[in-house]
């Protein structure tokens, strides 16, 4: 099946970090360090720079995030419209999975 631009499935081990980055950028542009702090607050995981930038490289290549120019070396990134669509699709899918899981647990 053809790959969709807003699909995170073929990100491999970077799929989860990529999702967390999209969630982090949903409330405004952030640079790498701010993303790491935000993700740690939201999800309790702190990605190393290798993992974070592996995911950022993939997201930027797919057009889901965009680097904004900055005067210092800490360039912020923002969510693109395609990235917002990818995030909405992934969260909807996760919600459906969560509902099924909770329903099965309740009836177990």
């Amino acid at each position, binding site marked *: 099946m053809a790959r969709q*631009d807003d699909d995170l499935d073929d990100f491999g081990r970077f799929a989860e970090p990529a999702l967390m980055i999209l969630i982090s950028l949903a409330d405004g542009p952030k*640079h*790498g*360090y701010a993303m*790491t702090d935000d993700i740690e607050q939201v999800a309790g995981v702190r*990605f*190393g*720079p*290798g*993992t974070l*930038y*592996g995911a*950022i*490289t*993939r997201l*930027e*290549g*797919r*057009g889901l995030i*965009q*680097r904004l120019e900055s005067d*210092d*070396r*800490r*360039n912020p990134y923002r969510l*693109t*419209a*395609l990235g917002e669509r990818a995030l909405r699709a992934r969260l909807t899918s996760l919600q459906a999975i969560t509902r099924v899981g909770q329903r099965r647990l309740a009836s177990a």
Partner: protein
Amino acid sequence: MTFLLRLYPSAWRRRYGGEVREMLAGRRFSLRIAVDLIAGAIDTWLHPSVTLAAAAAAARPTPEEQTMLSRLLRFDCAGLYGPGVTRADQWKASISVVVMTVVLTIAWWGLHLRLHDDPRMDSLSLMPFVFALFYSMRYTYLKGRPAIVQAVFIGGLTLLVAAVVLAVGWATTTL
């Protein structure tokens, strides 16, 4: 720890090196971060098309600015290996796999006959295809890399697989 950034390809360092250096500035050495950076470097070398795609994405208009037609055209050109690898490169890779496999298999067969069924030669029967496959990467994953990087990558991988195959062959015939 910024010295570990030297493990990354130069194209990646030009784009992200400054940001990561800024993140690492003033931090003490951490084994966890060192392993994470090394794993990231290996991944970046193994998937050069990802860095090429990011650089290409930065150079073109944002998705919001693109019409549907221009996005479809760009998507078609991007192909399996990223925007740096053309359809002609993919043809070259495919043809090189077929031609080299045939030529090297003939050479292997000649040696096989000359060495009178040496079990080590039997172990290496698949190496013509393996080498041809690795060699074809110079048109795809390794495209644009310096010749020395291509030689080390292709030669290193081939030697590694050959060593494993010979070891397995030796183990199955002597143990």
